[in-house]
């Protein structure tokens, strides 16, 4: 007999049985929460032209995209992220009359990450985007909806770290730091490597006054009192506006009653340069990284030809479920199907019984005796 390939490639896997039905149930609960906030479903193609993703992705990450060619020689990419696709689609059709657009999506994303690091290459994402609304209320709705989605999955012990890209950007502009240096510092601050950020800034001859200010972002962690401290050191308008906005955001989140899940952290930045305002990540025990990420990206849509503010988040469902399991959270499982047996003589009766039960909404398996 020829050798049969029975296992899947690295980084992808089969999901079946109870695990699969649990996943569907949780996805449906989260989806239900999104619907309850008035979000409408959207579905975009699994692969797109490379250019759609080129804007948001820097050269190192471009290596991690699955790329292939069509007959005409265009480069196509399996989507690594939904946001650019939705921005493209929205700028084309959804944003015409300037009223807020709320969409939710779910599906798989693909990233060709390196082997043997325990990271999946195919991930199931569920997320939302809220476009044409630049208010603090929109920021708050996003975070409150995320809290409500995570709670609906059964999670209770989690933390959402909230920062604002504008605070750090303002400091960099004030200090006259060029884009390339800014990106290098951002990378170090994102991994909380402040001594590397410091030596980098010393190397590039940045004024020590600004070095101190930038390194201070590490200290603004906690509830709203962290924001008071941040307000005291910022001298430029952009940074001050960022802090003021976060303070307003905290007030609205208090109205939603979700403030206990929020911790401000002005060192929360993203490697994606397209974030312009509030940035947030949700953390819980049992997951190696954030289980959900989001933020405001007011310039991205403009790149597809329609200027509009937008904010969104995405939940990595596989990470969320594995974190829940590690925390011992009990899932509501699908009820097992009722068995109705038949033999050659009584098939008609058995069929009628099964049909009746199915009509009552029961799950029925018709089995031979």
């Amino acid at each position: 007999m020829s050798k049969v390939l029975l296992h899947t490639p690295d980084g992808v896997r089969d999901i079946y049985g109870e695990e699969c039905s649990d996943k569907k149930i949780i996805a449906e609960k989260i989806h239900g929460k999104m619907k309850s906030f008035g979000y409408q479903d959207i579905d975009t193609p699994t692969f797109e032209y490379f250019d759609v993703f080129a804007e948001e992705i820097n050269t190192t990450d471009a290596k991690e995209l699955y790329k292939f060619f069509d007959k005409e020689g265009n480069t196509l990419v399996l989507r690594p992220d939904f946001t650019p696709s939705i921005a493209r689609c929205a700028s084309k059709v959804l944003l015409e009359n300037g009223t807020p657009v709320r969409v939710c999506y779910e599906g798989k994303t693909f990233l060709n990450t390196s082997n043997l690091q325990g990271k999946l290459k195919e991930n199931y994402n569920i997320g939302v985007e809220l476009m044409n609304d630049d208010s603090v209320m929109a920021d708050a709705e996003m975070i409150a909806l995320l809290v409500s989605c995570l709670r609906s999955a059964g999670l209770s012990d989690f933390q959402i770290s909230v920062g604002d890209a504008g605070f750090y950007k303002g400091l960099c502009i004030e200090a006259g730091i060029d884009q390339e240096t800014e990106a290098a510092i951002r990378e170090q601050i994102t991994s909380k490597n402040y001594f590397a950020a410091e030596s980098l800034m010393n190397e590039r001859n940045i004024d020590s006054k600004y070095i101190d200010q930038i390194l201070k972002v590490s200290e603004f962690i906690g509830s709203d009192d962290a924001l008071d401290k941040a307000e005291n050191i910022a001298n430029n308008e952009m940074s001050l506006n960022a802090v003021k906005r976060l303070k307003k955001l905290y007030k609205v989140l208090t109205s939603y009653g979700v403030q206990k899940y929020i911790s401000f952290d002005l060192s929360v930045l993203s490697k994606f340069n397209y974030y312009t305002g509030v940035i947030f990540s949700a953390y819980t025990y049992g997951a190696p990284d954030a289980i959900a990420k989001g933020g405001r990206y007011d310039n991205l849509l403009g790149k597809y030809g329609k200027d509009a503010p937008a904010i969104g988040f995405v939940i990595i469902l596989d990470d969320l479920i594995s974190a829940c399991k590690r925390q011992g959270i009990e899932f509501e499982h699908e009820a097992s199907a009722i068995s109705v047996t038949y033999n050659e003589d009584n098939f008609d009766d058995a069929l009628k019984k099964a049909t009746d039960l199915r009509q009552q909404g029961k799950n029925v398996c018709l089995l031979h005796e």
Partner: protein
Amino acid sequence: MRYLTFALGKGRLVESTMEILNKCGITCDEILDKKTRKLIFTNEELKLKFFLAKGPDVPTYVEYGAADIGIVGADTIMEEKRRVYEVLDLGFGKCRMCVCGPAEAKKLLEHRELIRVASKYPEIAKDYFFNQKHQTVDIIKLNGSVELGPIVNLSDVIVDIVETGSTLRENGLEVLEEICPLSARMIVNQVSMQMETERIRKLINDIKENL
């Protein structure tokens, strides 16, 4: 209160690490007892746990949250490229990552020829030769006694950690180029940093003051 778990890289870093922790009022003498067969050591008073792991595994334990905090050499962090926060340069365990070989191999590094490089750190070697020197090289991964490489003609040069250079000299090799300085680092799990912010930040500050 939840336990905070430390993963320490086995070997020469352990004593210096415990010395600094002692200065911060954190004790765990059992861990220094060479005869013990225990794998996990506990400080019940402060709700801390410690375990020893092979250096390259420390970032892995920390990435998955099996340990909240890790103490390990910068070489391992660069090689493993794990998603962890690198929060502190502890300053001890200082050494250098270098390209080494016999003196006559020096010219091979100038002419951008295709040469063979043996190393325990293939990622660091690759990054240095490809992205900084722009030299095409064949990298051979070895798991120990890398100095043998040039001696038995497996490779032209090696990329390895140099502390005093005495092993190199004894074997007729020398440092040809320095890649970067190294020292012990403290790394923190991304989730623990967010969930236990207060405790971990206090710990970092205490250690910083005692360096």
